[in-house]
């Protein structure tokens, strides 16, 4: 393992120097009040450029990544991120543009944003999109604030947002921030909306019903039109968490199903790289009735080119400074231009094909949560391994030894010991077959030598971590002088 970069420090060493100052030097104390001046210098590392490159190049090699490993993390759509998108995003004409430049000097970028918005609207069957939200959860909040503004405009902001128990945690969390009470509703045994349960909680106080479709069990909401009708009948709005759009693009348009608001995760469906936890982009699409409430700015196409509309009377305002994660939007734009209308359909068809292939090939050895055709991902459990004392966590950790990133585990919450496998459309049959082999071998090992699984991983840079210690004795930063931790140390394990 690498030591910390701070531990490599050598007083006086430099990794980068600025041009010599070519204007008269000034005494900071002469132009700034004494109290405004920093006294104690920051203890930043003092290392060379080589130190930095070597340190982080070595650190990077400790990661699994799409570029090095199959990464079937359910709900995360870890598909291949084409290098051409990176290449274009690095052009100076995009990279170095200031967000407040006059519109006349950014016509290229405005065109990208405008056309991306039109394409997303077309793909989703929505009227318009805002490209401003920074991620999926940010999109959810944006969508809910739009809903709130809409209801308010209609005379009553309403009180609740209904969220299925299978939903991603961001849904209820976003509802809360939007000022709503969260009403949870049970799913039916297949993880789909339980119409009765929904009916029971839907009423005039309901502002929004948030739904993920395909749901987090990888199944399509077959009763979606009934659901939409029920929701609309009480005057509420139907929201789509579009995290699973990889199953739908080019096949099914949420707008046609009755969704009023939705977000996309460009860092999932539209292949912008995850970067170890962002950056991201979570554009939000709405039906026509809701367009007046979209955040500003809005980009318009005019005779004279593209222009930026800074205000709109009913807009919810701004969700962030400036216009959005433009370099991410650009990558998604390039990606969609590569795929085109033929490619987007092939994308979802292949994603669905791959997930069903894994389902078919694995269901002998692993319990499938709901054994019917799935969409782009499939939930398995470790039920068959339970009698050997093996849990989902053990299987996941053992996969690491085989060079595969594990699936998402223990989500959705409504499936016990869930393993949510999303292969994505960019992985080949050969890779899937190797993964199947590994899982089959692990199933054998679970029967014959479960200890190997329970102590896995064995071949990774570090092995299982003491997470309790991490939480009980938080050490969240290097310190130049070790200080007493705020929480007294407690025994690491119970």
């Amino acid at each position, binding site marked *: 393992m690498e030591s910390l970069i701070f531990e490599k420090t050598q007083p006086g*060493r430099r990794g*980068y120097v600025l041009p010599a100052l*070519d*204007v008269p030097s000034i005494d*900071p104390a002469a132009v*700034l009040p004494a*109290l405004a001046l920093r006294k104690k210098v*920051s*203890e*930043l*590392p003092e290392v060379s*450029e080589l130190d*930095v*490159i070597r340190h982080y190049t070595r650190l990077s090699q*400790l*990661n*699994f*990544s799409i570029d090095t490993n199959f990464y079937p993390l359910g709900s*995360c759509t870890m598909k291949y991120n084409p290098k051409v998108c990176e290449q*274009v995003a690095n*052009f*100076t*004409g995009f*990279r170095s543009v*200031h*967000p*407040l*430049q006059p519109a*006349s*000097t950014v*016509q*290229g970028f405005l065109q990208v944003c405008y056309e991306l918005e039109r394409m997303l609207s*077309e793909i989703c069957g929505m009227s318009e999109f805002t490209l401003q939200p920074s991620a999926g959860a940010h999109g959810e*909040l944006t969508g809910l604030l739009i809903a709130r*503004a809409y209801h308010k405009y209609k005379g009553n902001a309403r009180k609740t947002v209904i969220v299925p128990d299978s939903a991603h*945690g*961001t849904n209820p969390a976003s509802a809360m*921030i939007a000022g709503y009470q969260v009403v949870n509703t049970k799913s039916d045994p297949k993880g789909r909306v339980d119409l009765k349960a929904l009916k029971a909680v839907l009423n005039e106080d309901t502002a929004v019903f948030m739904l993920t479709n395909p749901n987090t069990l990888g199944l399509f909401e077959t009763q979606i039109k009934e659901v939409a009708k029920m929701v609309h009948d009480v005057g509420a709005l139907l929201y789509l968490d579009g995290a699973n759009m990889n199953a739908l693009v080019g096949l*099914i348009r949420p707008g046609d*199903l009755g969704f009023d608001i939705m977000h996309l995760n460009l860092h999932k469906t539209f292949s912008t790289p995850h970067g*170890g*936890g962002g950056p991201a982009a979570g554009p939000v699409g709405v039906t026509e009735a809701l367009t007046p409430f979209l955040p500003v700015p809005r980009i318009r196409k005019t005779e004279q080119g593209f222009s930026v509309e800074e205000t709109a009377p009913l807009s*919810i*305002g*701004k969700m*962030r*400074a400036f216009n959005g994660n433009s*370099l991410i939007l650009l990558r998604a734009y390039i990606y969609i*231009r*590569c795929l085109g*209308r033929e490619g987007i359909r*092939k994308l979802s068809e292949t994603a669905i094909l791959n997930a069903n292939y894994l389902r078919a090939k694995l269901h002998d050895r692993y319990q499938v949560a709901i054994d019917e055709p799935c969409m782009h991902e499939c939930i398995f459990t470790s039920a068959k391994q339970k009698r050997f004392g093996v849990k989902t966590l053990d299987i996941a950790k053992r996969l690491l030894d085989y060079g595969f990133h*594990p699936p998402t585990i223990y989500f959705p919450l409504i499936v016990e010991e869930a393993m949510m496998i999303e292969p994505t459309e960019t992985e080949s*049959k050969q890779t899937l077959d190797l993964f199947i082999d590994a899982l089959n071998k692990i199933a054998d090992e679970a029967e014959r030598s479960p200890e190997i699984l329970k*102590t896995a*991983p064995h071949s990774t840079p570090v092995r299982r*971590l*003491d997470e309790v210690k991490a939480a009980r004795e*938080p050490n*969240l930063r290097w310190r130049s002088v070790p200080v007493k931790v705020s929480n007294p140390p407690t025994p690491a394990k119970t």
Partner: protein
Amino acid sequence: MDFTPHTDAERKEMLADIGVSDFKELVKGLPLYEGDFKIPSGLSEGEVVRLGHELGSRNQAPPRLLSFLGAGCYEHYSPAAISALMSRGEFLTAYTPYQPEVSQGTLQTLYEFQSAICEITAMDVCNAGMYEGASALAEAVLLAVRETGRQEVFIPHTLHPDYKAVLDTYTAEASVQLIDVPQRNGQMDLDFLRARVTENTAAVIVQNPNFFGIVEPVVEMGPIVQAAGAFYIAVVNPLSLGLLTPPGEFGADIAVGEGQALGIPPGYGGPYVGLFTCKSKWLRKMPGRLVGQTVDVDGKRAFVLTLQAREQHIRREKATSNVCTTTALIGFCANFYLTLLGKQGFRDVAYQNLAKSHYALDQFRQIPGVRVPFGDSPFFNEFVIQTKVPVENLQQALLEKGIAAGLSLKKWFPELENASLWAVTETKTKADIDHVAKALREVL
């Protein structure tokens, strides 16, 4: 060009293994879209690169464009080593480090990011990054309101207008009352605060340097806020902290900021990284991810996402925030920047910003037709001038010379006639500054 690998033969084989004869069977009964998608046909890579070149050439950008725009996004030198590292697939194409055994690269780098940000802010803890500066501020305000149970939040008139707008949006429904703190000579009016901050106050916000580039009396403000038991929330430009008193030393409870200045390309607005730091007493109330140090079963030092009980995937509607994916890779960038510049370089860059902007203002002052509204107030790397002609005319005239003039303030501060905000960073040479001064003189 799509990125699906299967050949027709493989598709058939896979369908057979699944037990269906045609893909359609897998989506039988689903409401498939029957229309034609009105999006263009797919392009090959060669075409798309050409398209990228065409579109990119329709934007003007430094270094061809000599730009004096700032206002929350700054042009700084970004060491070449940064993009070399950021383009490494192992960093670029990993997910959030849920499996620490195979994510130590991401985790240790984020831990080092947290550490570096704590160092420069002098705050106790820092999370692994927020979306960007303005929404980070909104999260800080929500935290303060939640923790104090109070509703009044004092917003400087000199706060970045976008930050103000985002606060408006985020708090629109939370019965929070945003109170505008007037400015005096470009700084927050301390008397106003003294008179108005009370035990009903949830938080007082300061931006330092503020939107006008002016350094606020952050130290003097501390006691006023603390006396009321309110949260002292600072919005800082991290790059200024090489020179300016850090929030940890002026008593801020929470300090947020836009990380863009730390080597991150302007990129027409993003992605950037929001910085979120606080006193350790608010640790368990923080939004966002935290990376902590621990050991593995063999006792080896290792890093892991920790204190997740605050987060949405565990706590759902009771979480401290809804954020999930944020901006790890951009946090890396900031960390690489701080590491490369290091202890001395970080001071140097702040100092050069100070010296260059002061040199520029000294030149501008001498131009007939230029007025400096907040002439006596201390500033860091940007400043406001007022000109005898409308800023739009100025902009247009300078653009023809390949110069992006300072930002017009008309939209937000109509009371400042023909005012514009000019940022002068270390990227501007003396010759650049003399050149723009000459151009201004010609225009005015």
